[in-house]
């Protein structure tokens, strides 16, 4: 064991009795997952191998542990799990055995040791009202622990729509004043991996990419373009049905049975950027549309307030009662119109007086 510094990722592989060939297998799989260009794929083993095993702090705030569930893929020891081992996950209050002051002390210690170099993963939104009283862990509010943890982080990875855009806690009426990570962390690069939950490979793939090549290319919402570059609609295998105008009208009609487009059943694919249609879920088994349900748009901001999961994307998005408002408008129009006609008649009578 080489003392004095963290073991490199390759050394961690070997400590677990895995050969460099195993590491090369892992790099090949990750490169193809990230669709890295040939040059980068060739560099990956060298870069990733030489990386000292990074410290990763995983802080959970206003979240449902869905993202963690997705990340840990508890039901099958797959490649992602190994990634999980290659990164030194020094703190995760759900997974670690330790708890209470011991756990907090361990975290502080890990953060101090890898100050400025550890990767901070944040899961869940951060409530601001009553200066963070709605989410307090170990006597410290989420607000303070995020600020404190972010100080020493090399980068902050916001996992899940809650951390990236506020998600459910942020949805109207947002009683706790929840905000996403990017609203609080200004001075550190923030990478949003939105989704509710995000695809496991997308989380680990982004982390691996970050370890090897630094912050990946991000879109306008700071999401890695390699996973969030295309809309589901553009990559959906049912797209030909959309273009032919063949739509399922209900979840069990002939259209649904034939796998037609789910646009009329509220699919938000056209306005949702994610890798579901290509990388798919559960080891490439399927993704929501393939199993017959429209995309909810879970990787987009405010998707909870997007006007209903089963209302077609192009339907009106009203606040209040349309009928009443339009009725009122018609009445108002009639009154103004009648007034203008009356005024006009009055002007006419005024002129007919004189010869």
């Amino acid at each position, binding site marked *: 064991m080489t003392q004095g510094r963290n073991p490199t990722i390759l050394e961690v592989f070997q400590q677990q009795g895995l050969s460099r060939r195993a590491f090369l297998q892992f790099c090949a799989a990750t490169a193809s997952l990230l669709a890295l260009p040939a040059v980068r794929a060739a560099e990956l083993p060298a870069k990733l191998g030489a990386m000292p095993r990074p410290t990763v702090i995983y802080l959970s705030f206003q979240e449902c542990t869905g993202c963690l569930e997705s990340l840990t893929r508890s039901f099958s020891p797959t490649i992602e799990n190994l990634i999980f081992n290659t990164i030194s996950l020094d703190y995760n209050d759900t997974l670690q055995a330790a708890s209470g002051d011991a756990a907090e002390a361990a975290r502080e210690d890990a953060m101090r040791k890898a100050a400025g170099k550890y990767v901070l993963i944040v899961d869940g939104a951060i409530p601001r009202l009553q200066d963070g009283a709605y989410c307090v862990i170990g006597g410290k509010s989420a607000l303070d622990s995020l600020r404190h943890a972010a100080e020493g982080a090399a980068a902050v990875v916001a996992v899940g729509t809650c951390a990236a855009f506020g998600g459910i806690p942020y949805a109207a009426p947002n009683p706790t004043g929840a905000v996403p990570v990017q609203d609080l962390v200004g001075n550190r690069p923030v990478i949003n991996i939105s989704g509710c939950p995000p695809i496991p490979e997308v989380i680990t793939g982004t982390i691996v990419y970050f370890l090897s090549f630094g912050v990946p290319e991000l879109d*306008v919402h700071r999401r890695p373009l390699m996973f969030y570059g295309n*809309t589901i*609609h*553009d990559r959906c295998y049912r797209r030909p049905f*959309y*273009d*032919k*105008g063949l*739509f399922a009208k209900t979840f069990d009609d002939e259209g649904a049975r034939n796998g037609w487009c789910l*646009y*009329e059943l509220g699919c938000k694919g*056209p*306005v949702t950027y994610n890798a579901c249609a290509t990388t798919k879920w559960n080891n490439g088994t399927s993704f929501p549309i393939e199993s017959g349900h429209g995309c909810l748009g879970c990787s*987009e*901001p*405010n*998707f909870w*307030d*997007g*006007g209903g999961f089963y*209302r*077609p*994307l*192009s*339907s*009106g*998005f*009203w*606040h*209040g009662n*349309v009928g009443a*408002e*339009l009725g009122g*408008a*018609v009445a*108002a*129009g*009639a009154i*103004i*119109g*009648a007034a*203008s*006609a*009356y005024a*006009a*008649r009055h002007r*006419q009578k005024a002129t007919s007086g004189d010869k």
Partner: protein
Amino acid sequence: MDLLNIARGPALQWSLVVFAVGVVWRLAGILLLARKPDYTEPRSTNTWGGAVRMIVSRTWSKREFLDRTAFAQTIGYVFHIGLAIVVFGFVPHILFIRSLTGLGWPGLPSGIIYVTGALTLAALAAALVRRLTNPVLRLLSNVDDYFSWLVTVAPVATGLVAVAHLGARYETLLAVHIFSVCLLLAWLPFGKLMHSFLVFISRGTTGALLARKGASI
């Protein structure tokens, strides 16, 4: 996404309100003006028949005028019918109308809509060229004509661009498309587009008056 939410939410809602107020205001302002009674002996009392007959017959030029009006009229119908097919045939549009009124009907394949949209755009362009070059039209045309043309072309153009995902992100293009529809709805009652309502009222009125005299319709 929030630009899109503003567009398809409050912006569309307010433009529909302005549309409703404007249309009823203008119609009321016209129809509630004085109406002089006609005491002359009618040649026919089937004024409603005359109204309907004119509304139908004036949709196409009479034989005697056809050779001078066929070209202009064809351009007009290509983009009018084109607009109708695109607006009422494209499934997302139908779903929007259904969300507003509850009425829905089967749509056309999207491919046909894209082709029709392109044809409509071409016809609208031809109409503008004609308005800019024909001496009669140059004399008659004012700001309302050109602005109304712009306001009609914008939704078609932005719609096609949105569908083709050209340029910006899809939601931005969709938002721009919906904003252009908002502009169309809000402008309609105050400019020449009001002819979409007045065409029936004007033709009907004149048809009724002429039928009463037994004059040619």
